[in-house]
């Protein structure tokens, strides 16, 4: 099992940051998530501990204790050594419905024009790819996705919009994603996902976890409306597939 080198950094009195090599890769992400699981399961027993993983880092934070950095980092290093060969995690692929209707995909024409390809081709490329969730942040439920095909790479809009609709699906550079709430934004909008990525009424308000895979599925306007109603009454069930480890 691959065990990349880590470095530990102090981050104020209540937190410690663990960094893996500075690259966007699934191997690194897997190593982080394996270790995070191990820490939560076997090491960080107090309820106040929180862990936040993204790309090549993992933050350990406990708002109520003062961390003795030299002592704690020694423990973390020992735990990392011990975590080798820990239990395999469940790997999940979520299939999220997206309407690419022009009523939602307000930048589709412009994107097609700038990339020099047809709208159907854009949709095919966008739905064929399987994306990896490298982090969740910015606003509640916003996923940082990696794995955008090179052909779909397009700069952000020159002028950001002041309001992008909730559920809007956008592309920009090497990134694609869903705006979980209405917010300002500079991505090129190509569709809309009717399923809420963040639902405050659920005990687990965001069903996606860092490390999960995402694939978009093209749906008709009719199906979109149906999912929208399901979402409003709280009975939506995002399609989940378990992947082999």
């Amino acid at each position: 099992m691959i065990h990349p080198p880590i470095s530990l950094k102090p981050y104020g009195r209540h937190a410690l940051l663990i960094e893996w090599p500075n690259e966007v890769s699934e191997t690194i992400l897997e190593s982080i998530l394996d270790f995070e699981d191990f820490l939560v399961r076997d090491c960080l027993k107090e309820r106040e501990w929180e862990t936040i993983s993204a790309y090549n880092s993992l933050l350990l934070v406990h708002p109520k204790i003062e961390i003795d950095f030299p002592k704690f980092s020694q423990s973390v290093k020992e735990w990392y050594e011990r975590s080798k060969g820990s239990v395999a995690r469940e790997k999940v692929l979520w299939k999220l419905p997206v309407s690419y209707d022009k009523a939602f995909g307000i930048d589709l024409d412009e994107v097609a024009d700038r990339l020099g390809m047809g709208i159907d081709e854009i949709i095919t490329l966008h739905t064929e790819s399987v994306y990896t969730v490298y982090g969740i942040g910015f606003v509640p439920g916003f996923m940082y996705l990696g794995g955008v095909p090179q052909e779909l790479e397009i700069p952000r809009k020159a002028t950001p919009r002041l309001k992008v609709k909730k559920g809007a699906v956008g592309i920009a550079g090497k990134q694609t994603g869903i705006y979980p709430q209405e917010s300002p934004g500079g991505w090129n909008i190509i569709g809309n996902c009717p399923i809420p990525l963040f639902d405050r009424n659920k005990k687990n308000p965001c069903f996606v976890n860092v490390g999960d895979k995402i694939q978009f599925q093209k749906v008709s306007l009719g199906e979109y409306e149906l999912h929208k109603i399901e979402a409003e009454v709280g009975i939506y069930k995002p399609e989940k597939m378990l992947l082999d480890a």
Partner: protein
Amino acid sequence: MLKVLKSGFFTSVQDLGRFHHRKKGVPVSGCMDQQSVYKVNTLLENDDRSAVLEITMTGPTLEFEKETSIVLGGALISVTLNNKPIQNYKVYQVKAGDILSYGSFKKGFRAYLAIKGGFRSKEILGSRSFYVPITDKNRLEAGDEVPYEEHQGFTPKISELKVDSLLDETVLEVYKAPEFELLTDRQLENLFSREFTVSKENNRMAYQLSETLEGHQHSILTSATLPGTVQFTPAGKLIILMKDGQTTGGYPRILQLSDKSISVLAQKREGNTISFKFI
């Protein structure tokens, strides 16, 4: 219920904060000046997680509908209870129909109103702290009502607290944050030798400082941030994340404020100056 007759500039319900959802992008929220809130809740012998009203810049006018006890704290502000002036960090009994009216702020930027047993607005994801879209509202408006429970005949163990105020402090005590080592000698010298001014971009999410340091070209992969993190933009701007600040960011994190210093900064407004000092 506590009836909001006039809202003031920005009044919201806040408690210790919303924990365990940061990994899904939910900011911690909660009181900006936790140090003052701890004192007002303690005087009322409340649990430290009890929710209070956070009152920013200009205050509201409020009407009580049930008997209870209250304590004010944080910013220095002229407040009257039924037209009689009252003071910070002192327990007062209130009755149904009593009117609490805020006047002008004399010192500081955020005042707190604590109530016996805490305010009981809806708890969502483990906290009552206002933050859209977790809660419906960011702030209270005229006509709103905030629930609380009736408390008769509360006799406090201590009825008044003489406090060392944080309001006059201007030095922020800091620790190193993960990208501290990226700073050049010149940037370091500037950072610790000069005063910085709070810009007009200051709110519950972040405080930006007006003066800049020499810019840089470092970029980092998006990584976790905390309330009190000082971010350093390529243009040389310093942004200090506060309680509603986003949970991840892509700017180098150079310093981390102590808990006390977050409270000190929370009492500053546009034009106030601060400086940094290592603990």
